[in-house]
C-alpha cells in the first residue's frame, strides 16, 4: 500500500461519492456542488497521472468558470426543489439495470484489453519534466488548425449565448 494507490483510492471514492450525490440531491445547487467535488477529485487524479497542465486547466476552466456559470444560472432562475415524478416506469425498471450492464460491459472489455500490459508508474511525477512545453509544442504546431477552429467556436458560442439569453425590453 504505497502513497499513490492510497491517493488514488481516496480521490476515486470522493469522485464516486460526488457523482452519487449528484443523482440523489434534491436541490440543483447541491448537485452543482457535488459536481464541483467530482471535478476537484479528478484534477487531483490528473496530477497523479502527471498531467499538471490539464489539472490546472480543469480547475481554472471547468471548475472555475463553467460550473460558476451553472451556479449563476441556478441562482438567477431560482431553481428550487425539484419534484420527483414517477411518470416513466420504463426508466426506473429498465434504465437502472441497463446502465449497470453498460458499466459492467465497459469494465469487462477494459479488463480484457489491459491485462498483461505495462503498468503506470504514478509515483514518479512528472515523468516528462516539462510536459507543458511539449504539450504547447503539439498544440501550436500539429494541432494548430483545431486550436484556431475552437477559438472561432468559442466566439460563436459567446455571441449565441448573449443573443439567446437577451430579454427583449
Amino acid at each position, binding site marked *: 500500500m504505497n502513497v*499513490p494507490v492510497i491517493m*488514488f483510492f481516496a480521490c*476515486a471514492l470522493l*469522485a*464516486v461519492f460526488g*457523482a*452519487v450525490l*449528484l*443523482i440523489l440531491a434534491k436541490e*440543483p445547487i447541491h*448537485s452543482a456542488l457535488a459536481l464541483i467535488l*467530482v*471535478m476537484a477529485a*479528478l484534477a487531483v*487524479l490528473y496530477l497523479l*497521472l*502527471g*498531467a499538471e497542465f*490539464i489539472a490546472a*486547466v*480543469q480547475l481554472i476552466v*471547468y471548475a472555475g*468558470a463553467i460550473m460558476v*456559470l*451553472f451556479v449563476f*444560472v441556478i441562482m438567477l*432562475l431560482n*431553481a428550487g426543489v*425539484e419534484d420527483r415524478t414517477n*411518470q416513466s416506469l420504463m*426508466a426506473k425498471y429498465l434504465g437502472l439495470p441497463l*446502465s*449497470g450492464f*453498460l*458499466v459492467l460491459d*465497459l*469494465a469487462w472489455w*477494459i479488463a480484457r484489453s*489491459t491485462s498483461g*500490459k*505495462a*503498468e*503506470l*508508474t*504514478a*509515483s*514518479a511525477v512528472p*515523468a*516528462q519534466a516539462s*510536459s507543458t512545453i*511539449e*504539450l504547447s509544442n503539439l498544440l501550436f504546431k500539429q494541432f494548430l488548425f483545431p486550436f484556431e477552429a475552437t477559438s472561432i*467556436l*468559442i466566439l460563436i*458560442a459567446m455571441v*449565441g*449565448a448573449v443573443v*439567446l*439569453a437577451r*430579454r427583449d425590453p
Partner: protein
Amino acid sequence: MNGVPIFYFLILSAVLFGLGVVAFLFKRNIIAIFMSIELMLNAVNLAFVAFSRALGKLDGQVFVFFVIVVAAAEAAVGLAIAINIAHNRRTLNVEQVDLLKF
C-alpha cells in the same frame, strides 16, 4: 510495484460514465441534466489522460484540452436555452416542456 495500474483509472472512468447516464435518465430538472452531461464528459477526459500516460504520448492531453473548451461552449449555449425555456414555460421540469407550440 510502484504505481497505480491503468486498469483502475479506466474502471473509475467507466463507473463515472455510468453514473452520468443514470443521472441523465432520472433527473427532471434541465440544469441537472446538463450537469450529468458534464459528468460524462469528465469521465471521458479521465480515460483520455490515463491512456495518454500509458502510451507515453501527449495527444490524449491535447484532446482533453479541446474537450474542455467545447464543453465550455456547449454549456454556455445550453444554459442560454435553459434560461429561455424557464422564462417562456415558467418551469424547469422537462416533463412539462413537451409541446412544440403552446
